[in-house]
């Protein structure tokens, strides 16, 4: 029966194991998955998944989205002020990480960072006045990711802040991120003391112009090759950026030294970048955002093109469902805490840095960075296991980002929401942990997973767009 049943029976047995054994003894190829109801047993979501399963329109859309993602060539091309650079940025607007959220709902670190941004902009002269202004409704709060922008932790970006400008030369779009302030008391964790604001002002007035001149003098820096090289040096370019920051410095230092400016300015700029192992993170994020913007807006595509957390909710977007966020409560991060802190101090998962996982690095590239799994007491082999597991839920492997420990395999990339729901394997995320109160700063780091509920909602919405 060559037409209907092929030449040889190859069976997928879902359910009773004895049926698999019987067919196997009679010579059929049989695979018996340890089947569990997909979508945590939600029948409607299961049927939505079924309607999209290997659907030709979804397959073609995903191919298109994934190809665009792979083709993206992000380069850091310059520095600018948020108001001037970011499309849709308003003069009285503050951007935050994750999906949309109202002031009253925001978590402590985000509110703190907004107070800091208001003070930084000079819109209020005291924290109390800033809080009143934030509550008043006069300031617009919008997600960074509504503006091709990403920010770690609070992700707070106000109009006069300097931003990295990243250009995808393949598709021509720009993406943006703020500059990394370092660890400790910093705005992104909600601190707004004078020293925090002074540092921000210095970054705006001195550091950004120096970097802007340097990057202009070298004609931009391609980010994918730099990230790829960093993956071979122990980074996963989300929670570990030590190598990438070093590689960046190798390119920046000669350019900075050649600038016709005061030597002290050069030294301070180089010192600042050198002292912050996370400096590259924001560039990594803007590069990842650029790759994913390339994949946006393909009708029918189940590829995840954005993930983000605002400290209260975790949200995802699919290429095929436009600007809609699908949200669930942000999970708690399991990890190691700095001495004096515990899980009781932790804010729920926060920040746009999960854009790195969305683009196939970060947790997906954990095999490159065994040091990371120690945050959860894991072994090096756990890092490999995380990267391998992510292959089960992605459209492919990105040949631009290879993992030496996995025989130079490309990182799993292009999260397919259908595969997430069918397998129940959730995207793994490496992340820092913020203190739940504004301004305390980072209290630990660890590993978490995107919430399943986001993917359930997203699939139901996508299925509605496909239904005849």
């Amino acid at each position, binding site marked *: 029966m060559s037409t209907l049943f092929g030449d040889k*029976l*190859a069976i*997928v047995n879902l359910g*009773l194991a004895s049926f698999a054994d019987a067919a196997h003894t009679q010579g059929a190829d049989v*695979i018996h998955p340890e089947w569990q109801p997909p979508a945590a047993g939600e029948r409607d979501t299961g049927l939505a998944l*079924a309607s999209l399963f290997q659907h030709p329109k979804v397959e073609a859309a995903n191919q298109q989205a994934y190809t665009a993602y792979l083709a993206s060539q992000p380069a850091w091309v310059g520095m600018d002020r948020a108001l001037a650079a970011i499309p849709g940025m308003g003069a009285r607007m503050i951007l935050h990480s994750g999906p949309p959220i109202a002031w009253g709902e925001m978590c402590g670190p985000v509110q703190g960072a907004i107070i800091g941004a208001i003070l930084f902009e000079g819109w209020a002269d005291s924290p109390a006045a800033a809080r009143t202004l934030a509550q008043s409704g006069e300031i617009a709060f919008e997600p960074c990711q509504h503006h091709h922008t990403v920010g770690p932790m609070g992700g707070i970006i106000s109009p006069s802040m300097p931003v990295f400008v990243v250009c995808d030369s393949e598709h021509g779009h720009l993406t943006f991120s703020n500059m990394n302030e370092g660890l400790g008391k910093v705005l992104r964790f909600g601190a707004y003391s004078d020293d925090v604001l002074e540092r921000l002002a210095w970054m705006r007035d001195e550091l950004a112009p120096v970097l802007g001149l340097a990057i202009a003098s070298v004609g931009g820096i391609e980010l994918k090759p730099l990230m790829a090289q960093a993956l071979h040096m122990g980074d996963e370019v989300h929670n570990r950026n030590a190598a990438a920051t070093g590689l960046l410095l190798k390119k920046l230092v000669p350019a900075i030294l050649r600038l016709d400016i005061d030597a002290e300015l050069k030294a301070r700029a180089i010192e600042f970048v050198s002292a912050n192992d996370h400096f590259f993170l924001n560039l990594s994020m803007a590069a990842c955002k650029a790759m994913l913007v390339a994949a946006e807006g393909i009708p029918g595509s189940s590829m995840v093109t954005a993930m983000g957390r605002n400290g209260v909710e975790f949200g995802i977007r699919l290429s095929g469902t436009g600007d809609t966020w699908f949200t669930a409560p942000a999970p708690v991060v399991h990890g190691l805490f700095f001495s004096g802190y515990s899980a009781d101090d932790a804010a729920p998962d926060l920040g746009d840095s999960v854009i790195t996982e969305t683009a196939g690095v970060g947790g997906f590239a954990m095999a490159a960075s065994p040091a990371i799994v120690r945050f959860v007491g894991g072994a090096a082999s*756990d890092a490999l*296991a995380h990267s*391998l597991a992510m292959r089960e839920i992605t459209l492919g492997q990105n040949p631009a980002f290879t993992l030496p420990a996995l025989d130079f395999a490309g990182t799993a990339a292009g999260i397919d929401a259908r*595969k997430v729901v069918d397998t129940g394997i959730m995207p793994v995320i490496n992340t820092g942990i913020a203190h739940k109160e504004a301004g305390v700063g980072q209290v630990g780091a660890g590993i978490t997973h995107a919430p399943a509920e986001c993917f359930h909602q997203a699939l139901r919405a996508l299925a509605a767009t496909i239904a005849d």
Partner: protein
Amino acid sequence: MSLHLAILRNQYRDSVALMQLSAALAKLEGITQASAVMATPANLELLTRAGLLADAPDAAPNDLLIALQGDEGAFEAALANARQALDAKGGKGGSGPAALPANSLTMALERQPDSNLALISVPGQYATAEAEKALRAGLNVMLFSDNVSGADERRLKLLATELGRIVMGPDCGTAIIHGVPLAFANVCRQGSIGCVGASGTGLQQVTVLIDRLGEGVSQAIGTGGHDLHASIGGLSMLAGIRALKEDETTRVIVLVSKPPAEDVARAVLDAAISTGKPVVVNFLGADPARLPQHPQLHYASTLQSAAQMAVALVRGQRPADQAPALDAALASGARTLLGAQQRQLRGLYSGGTFCYEATLMLGGALPGLHSNTPTASVPAPDDVWEVRGHSLIDLGDDEFTRGRPHPMIDHRLRNERFIAAAADPAVAVILFDIVLGFGAHESPLEAMRDTLLEVRAMAREAGRTVHLVATVCGTNADPQNYARQWEGFAELGVMLTASNAEAVALARAIVADL
């Protein structure tokens, strides 16, 4: 000798990996020199010096260059080779962790990409989604699960028709595909008789008899019991008939079903005729005289007759619908052993179609007969748990299997009914089936031995003889072994026949007109 240069933008690779790639490319036929390098100024100079670079390329240090020297015809293959090596999915690292165990259709298809059939026995509320996914992935589906709604069944079967696939089921217990028994099925010789059946035990009976008569089965395709209802329209039976039409191994086709709605029957028989192959039809209980006549169509009145007619056709002989064989001397001998009170028959079946066939054959012959597989002339009993008079009970009915294993797997419930029947002074004959094959109990003989011995002992103490009449549905290749089971039951005093129809005929002859 020509040169070729490919530029892969922003594809960073470390130099060791690229040296390995260069070496591999240089070994390809038609390639004399090959070099894969990052396009740094130093590397460009090296390529120029090696004669691999004619002009300075428009490449940046982050771009990967593949420079080839050799026959022009060899370049395309070499580049494909290079891309493949660069895109290699890689392993899991020397002593890395094992891949995750598959937990879903997605992962199963990843691990067994040539899968062509999904055998689904998950709870009914999830079965529809799994079946739809399997169909969309290009697989055929055998849906053992029940509790799938009629609307879902219709939707799945329409989708299957659209995709050129088949859904066997829902509630499909039996199939044999390429000689592989699926779910509840027997190990039959492979051959040239293809079967499509809406009834699981009906298919089992026909296929084991074909095997026992020395012929073989090409495919046995189950459709599930609702397939020939007007609302489904026999979509799976039609798909099955199409498959057997296209299957060159299949020379004769057997169709088994309860009588379908008239227009469904018409569609099925038209499809059967269109195969150009002889088709034996057993529409259980239908009057052949009232069905469409055609030289290709041969109507059988019992499952056994269907098997016999198919075997005759395959052997080029004239098929004839025959009544089941009866050893009249055996029957009359048995009658003489019965006490004056012993007049009744109790049928205790595990196969629904066997019970139904018995109901059809005994309706009219046994006054007051009740059956829980009722027909127009035989009503259902008021209470299946408490029956009196002549009765036929299918213990595989939902009423008995809710929260309990099927009686083909777990004999306990049926054994209790045997004891109850033996204690009833009115009972003359216990008629039953013994079903072997995959899915069934590993040895019905062991499962029933103590019960049958007790039935004998109870009858003896009461001064009665209770006749046990049965058929064994199985083959010698079944895990339980037909011959061994037969001998064991025969030793226990069970009167065994070749088929269910013969068992019913023998039981009828013993109790009729008492």
